[in-house]
């Protein structure tokens, strides 16, 4: 189920240069994910991975409204969040391949990328597992008296986890600057959320008095405008917010889920009409902010950067044996 979208906020528009930057970030995520899929299918990547394709407008729309020193927590489907918050392609790929040059020295892999320099407190393999961490970062911001914010990304499946509700309650009680971003892609693994989530999604947060709204997660302009409002509000001590971003994962739950028997090709085709990249491209062209060649050049540049990053990662070395018991304790 998609929550009914609330009306668009007054758009706080970026200038063209920033929209093109957002476009580049979205293309970067799309290309990264397509490449990760290729690495999997050609048996060049260990394990499996969860692709963010189709949901790019959310990570980029939110992160473009954040500062470098703001925090995010991410999920098993986390590459988009990490890149949107500023992660480098080469160290991302190196981590996916289990190399020492990776963000986590090969220890974390696809599901656990963390990068304190860009405020990424870590992706999480436990559904809903970062609700407490993001809220704790909000607590720390309040105690340290800064004007940072903390964004908690999670899927609609995490609505099943009690920790989320304990956390939101405290965030509202203590007016913590935490933005809870529910990426409602309709499914948790192979089960549609109409079978797992009773009642209203936004109602779960508004019951605590948390500012809550549902928005179109395919349209980066809506996501970004909404994000700016709730983030500014949180910076000024206005407390937490909860955004349900309606979206769809265009691929399977993970790279190995190719048959997708739990959903119809028709449903997928409907959502494909609302590809977040195409929506932004169409708008940029129609509003005459960019010509087709400009967008194509961006795509080409990203493609080259991704290819270079993969080459870097494939050439990088595996961690040495002595790495295995380092970092168990600080």
């Amino acid at each position, binding site marked *: 189920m998609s929550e009914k979208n609330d009306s668009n906020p007054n758009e706080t528009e970026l200038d063209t240069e920033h929209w093109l930057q957002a476009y580049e970030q979205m293309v970067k995520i799309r290309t990264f994910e397509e490449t990760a899929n290729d690495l999997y299918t050609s048996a060049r990547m260990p394990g499996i991975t969860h692709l963010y394709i189709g949901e790019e407008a959310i990570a980029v729309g939110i992160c473009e409204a954040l500062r470098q020193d703001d925090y995010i927590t991410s999920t098993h489907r986390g590459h988009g969040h990490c890149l949107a918050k500023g992660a480098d392609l080469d160290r991302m790929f190196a981590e996916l391949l289990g190399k020492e040059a990776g963000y986590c020295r090969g220890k974390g*892999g696809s599901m656990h990328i963390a990068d304190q320099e860009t405020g990424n407190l870590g992706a999480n393999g436990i559904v809903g597992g970062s609700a407490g961490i993001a809220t704790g970062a909000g607590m720390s911001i309040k105690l340290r008296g800064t004007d940072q914010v903390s964004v908690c990304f999670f899927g609609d499946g995490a609505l*099943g986890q009690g920790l989320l509700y304990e956390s939101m309650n405290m965030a509202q009680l203590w007016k913590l600057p935490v933005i809870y971003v529910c990426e409602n892609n309709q499914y948790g693994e192979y089960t549609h959320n109409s079978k797992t989530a009773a009642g209203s999604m936004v109602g779960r947060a508004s019951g605590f008095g948390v500012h809550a709204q549902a928005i179109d997660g395919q349209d980066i302009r809506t996501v970004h405008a909404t994000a700016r409002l709730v983030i500014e509000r949180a910076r000024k001590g206005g407390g937490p917010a909860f955004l349900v971003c309606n979206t769809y994962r265009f691929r399977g739950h993970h790279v190995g889920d190719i048959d997708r028997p739990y959903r119809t090709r028709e449903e997928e085709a409907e959502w494909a009409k609302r590809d977040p990249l195409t929506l932004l491209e169409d708008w940029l062209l129609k509003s005459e902010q960019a010509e087709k060649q400009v967008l194509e050049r961006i795509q080409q540049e990203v493609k080259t950067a991704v290819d270079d990053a993969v080459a870097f990662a494939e050439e990088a070395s595996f961690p040495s044996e002595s790495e295995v018991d380092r970092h168990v304790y600080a």
Partner: protein
Amino acid sequence: MSTLENGTRCSPAIHAPGERQITFGQAIREAIAEEMARDENVFVIGEDVAEAGSVFKVLVGLLDEFGPERVIDSPISEAGIAGIGVGAAITGMRPIVDIMFGDFTTLVMDQLVNQAAKTHYMSGGKLTVPMVLRTTLGASRRSAAQHSQSLHALFSHIPGLKVALPATPYDAKGLMKTAIRDDNPVVIFEDKMLYQEKGPVPEEEYTLPLGQADVKRTGEDITIIATSSMVYVGLEAADKLASIGISAELIDPRTTNPLDSDTLIQSAKKTSRALVLDEGYRQYGVTGEIASVIADGAFYYLDAPVKRIGAMNVPVPFSPAMEDLTIPDADDVVETAKAMCAGDS
């Protein structure tokens, strides 16, 4: 072995000619289906257990056979479904709660440890919790630290819980059936890497008692006690040891709680050496408990200190280059056993 390959540490299953061969996964499924047919109070609840037949495809077909009232897809609410399991069990049902990865059992700790394990005792024997919690263990799938742990020692520590960790299809079916019929909460750990392993399972119905070890191979010089997938590592090691003239006996306790101490001690007395092998973290784990049971019971018969091999005391790393170092393999066992038999351990 290529470092990219997902781990392949299982030797071929143990064969007994003439018998029907089914996989470990099929054995689990059969046990559950038979018990559901036998007792209408048995039901299954968990994430993606019904329509998808579980993420490891172990439960495929149960939904068609028993319907959505008895094979229930739940939200991603581990604590919630465990709690529902406890409450339903106390009031007459026999729930099977499915926790996809053993790592997620940390989310059900209160319901299992403080509620399920203690209800019978605290109520002075009035209430019972006949519930099964089935989950997984085992690394080597390149799944990193939150999807690879073997946490059975945590539950083995708790009075009031029973813990089974079958290694073969035969044991899996027999132990699962008994667990479902048991009037206590039983946690079953299944190794994710074993689901496709085939082994002999008779057509006729049977059950296996909880608390009875199984001798998987007889030998004279050293006893290897191994659990779950480590049984195969132990057997591979026993083959290698045989080729250098060391005869190893391999015993699988099959349940860690209750633990069949007698069988372990008798074997150690016979061979005069014991080596314990388990995929849990080595520190404060199953190997420590079993080693102390043997040291206690067979001390005067031993020619070497009891040794133990477990997973390295580190979170399971993602990179294949590191992950494989953390899990015991046959060579580790051979080296340790050789040293013990040479008297230089």
